[in-house]
């Protein structure tokens, strides 16, 4: 038992990785699905065990590969921040798996279903790997594992535009990952180390003549990761990718992939560069603030004018991600807590919204706004989840979204940025408009012919939706599992600022 507990950090990655291999050998989609289901829940169990261990002790868990000591070997390092992100990723992965079987069976050809689950498991492997590893180059490898499998997941969409969306994401994603490697390469040339914690300590002692490559590395890392997390002007790939991917893939990506990139950005800024350099001697904070504010307003406005609800929510994701980058840019405890807790809250809410849309697609075969007329009466539970999660997106008190926006607004005011608090409110008001449009069409219009005979999806799809819908409400009232843990993580990160 002790030995097993010691190996948890590596098992977090190995379990989905071997499950992916196993699922690739499955001929039938259902067998592959069973493998994916077991692996996802096992990953969740491991993440929970890790989180219990990390939050109980003040020291992070360090795991060394093959017994090589730390700066030489690859280290897996779990602290409060990535334990939290691991929880988020595995929760989303585990909750959507029961839903996946029927949805995937409907949307993907039977001979491709096993490949879908293989790619899903590889993507899970990559995302968990980025989160758990403490080695800069290992991050790149896992980033590419998750990206390559994501391209395939998107290309499995039924529409031929899915191919185009996948191709566009491949180009942009590869540029992003390559920028990241360039940044890591420059840091390696200066410090001679690839271990993130070791780089951090060596950067502190770097002499003045090396400041230029260090700053260049920061620029490359920031741009590379921002491409991955779809910060405002770099977000062009995201709406198409989310709109044309199969429903389950969209849910998974919207809930986890961008959050992991946000995590990586936090890790680089706060743990590697130690917060002091990017935020006091360089204008990183100002740049991020401007981009985030632009995204909040412009991406939300794009969402308002979108007639495909999946694309609408994708644009809303761009706006919501900017809340997280806003929290990073504020660099004080409330702001950073808001940013981190919004990773969890937005992951849960957006997954619930996309699950509801997936259920609509399962029954109606379309998610265009015009085709949803009167669907609120035909699929009451599905649309109830949509409404609850939509209210969360707006930030209505009592839902998860309110908690994160509250922390962000407090963080902005503590910094003396009063207008920023108003921008947060204004962006929420725009969210009222686009969520309101869907509610208006779904509840206040006469059902059209193609929705007349629909009803709520089968139980296996309904339960995950209801779970995430309930989580939106739960996280809006009881915050010790979300904001509490996030605040712990933020305190730990800001230790470097003082």
């Amino acid at each position, binding site marked *: 038992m002790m030995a097993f507990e010691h190996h948890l950090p590596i098992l977090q990655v190995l379990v989905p990785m071997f499950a992916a291999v196993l699922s690739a050998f499955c001929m039938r989609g259902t067998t592959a699905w069973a493998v994916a289901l077991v692996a996802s829940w096992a990953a969740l169990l491991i993440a929970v065990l890790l989180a219990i261990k990390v939050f109980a002790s003040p020291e992070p868990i360090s795991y060394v590969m093959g017994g090589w000591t730390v700066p030489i070997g690859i280290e897996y390092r779990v602290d409060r921040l990535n334990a939290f992100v691991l929880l988020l990723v595995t929760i989303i992965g585990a909750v959507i798996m029961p839903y996946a079987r029927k949805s995937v069976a409907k949307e993907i050809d039977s001979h491709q279903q096993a490949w879908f689950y293989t790619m899903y498991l590889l993507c899970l492997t990559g995302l968990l790997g980025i989160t758990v590893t403490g080695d800069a*180059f290992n991050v*790149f*490898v896992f980033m*590419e594992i998750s990206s*390559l499998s994501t*391209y*395939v997941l998107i*290309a499995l969409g039924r529409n*031929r*535009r899915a*191919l*185009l*969306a*996948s*191709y566009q994401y*491949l*180009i942009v994603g*590869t*540029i992003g990952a*390559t920028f990241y*490697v*360039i940044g890591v*390469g420059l840091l*390696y*040339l200066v410090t001679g180390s*690839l271990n993130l914690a070791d780089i951090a300590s060596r950067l502190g002692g770097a002499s003045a003549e090396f400041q230029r490559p260090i700053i260049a590395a920061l620029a490359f890392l920031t741009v590379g990761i921002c491409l991955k997390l779809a910060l405002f002007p770099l977000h062009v790939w995201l709406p*198409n990718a989310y709109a044309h991917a199969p429903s389950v893939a969209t849910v998974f990506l919207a809930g986890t992939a961008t959050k992991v990139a946000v995590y990586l950005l936090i890790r680089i800024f706060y743990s590697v560069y130690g917060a002091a350099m990017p935020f006091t001697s360089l204008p990183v904070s100002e740049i991020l603030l401007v981009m985030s504010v632009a995204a909040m307003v412009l991406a939300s406005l794009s969402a308002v004018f979108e007639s495909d609800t999946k694309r609408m929510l994708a644009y809303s994701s761009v706006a919501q991600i900017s809340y997280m980058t806003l929290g990073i840019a504020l660099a004080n405890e409330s702001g950073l807590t808001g940013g981190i807790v919004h990773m969890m809250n937005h992951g849960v809410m957006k997954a619930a919204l996309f699950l509801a849309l997936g259920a609509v697609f399962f029954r109606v075969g379309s998610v265009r706004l015009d085709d949803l007329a009167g669907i609120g009466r035909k699929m009451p539970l599905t649309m109830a989840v949509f409404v609850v999660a939509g209210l969360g997106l707006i930030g209505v008190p009592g839902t998860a979204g309110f908690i994160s926006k509250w922390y962000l607004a407090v963080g902005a005011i503590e910094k003396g940025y009063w207008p920023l608090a108003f921008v947060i409110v204004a962006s929420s008001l725009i969210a009222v408009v686009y969520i309101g449009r869907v509610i208006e069409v779904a509840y206040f219009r006469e059902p059209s012919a193609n929705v007349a005979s629909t009803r709520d999806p089968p139980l296996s799809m309904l339960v995950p939706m209801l779970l995430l819908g309930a989580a939106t409400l739960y996280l809006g009232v009881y915050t010790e599992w979300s904001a509490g843990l996030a605040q712990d993580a933020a305190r730990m990160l800001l230790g470097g600022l003082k």
Partner: protein
Amino acid sequence: MTALTTFLEHYNYFITIFLMVSGLYIVIARGNMIKKLVGLSLFQTSVYLLYVAPGKIIGGTAPIFDRAYTVYSNPLPHVLILTAIVVGVATLALGLALVVRINEAYGTIEEDEIFSADGEI
């Protein structure tokens, strides 16, 4: 004169950056999907040079332990880049596979023709 010596001392970096920028330029400027992938590949490959060139230590020998030598080249960048090459090959292969599928679906691999076939997406 100092500019020239700086250039000569760092010529490997200048080559790297030239390749990097030309690759990125091809990705942005070309509308043909195969050409874009070639540019992308060039861009990725230039990074291999960024890593491998500084791994050479002047006067150093191959990193195989022997009592006769004390100075070795740094083997770590080579190992890293072996991994990066694998990643690059996988990306290129997947990209080309996508282009084949796009060609089957649209009958063309020129971006502007595809956009006009589907309307701006």
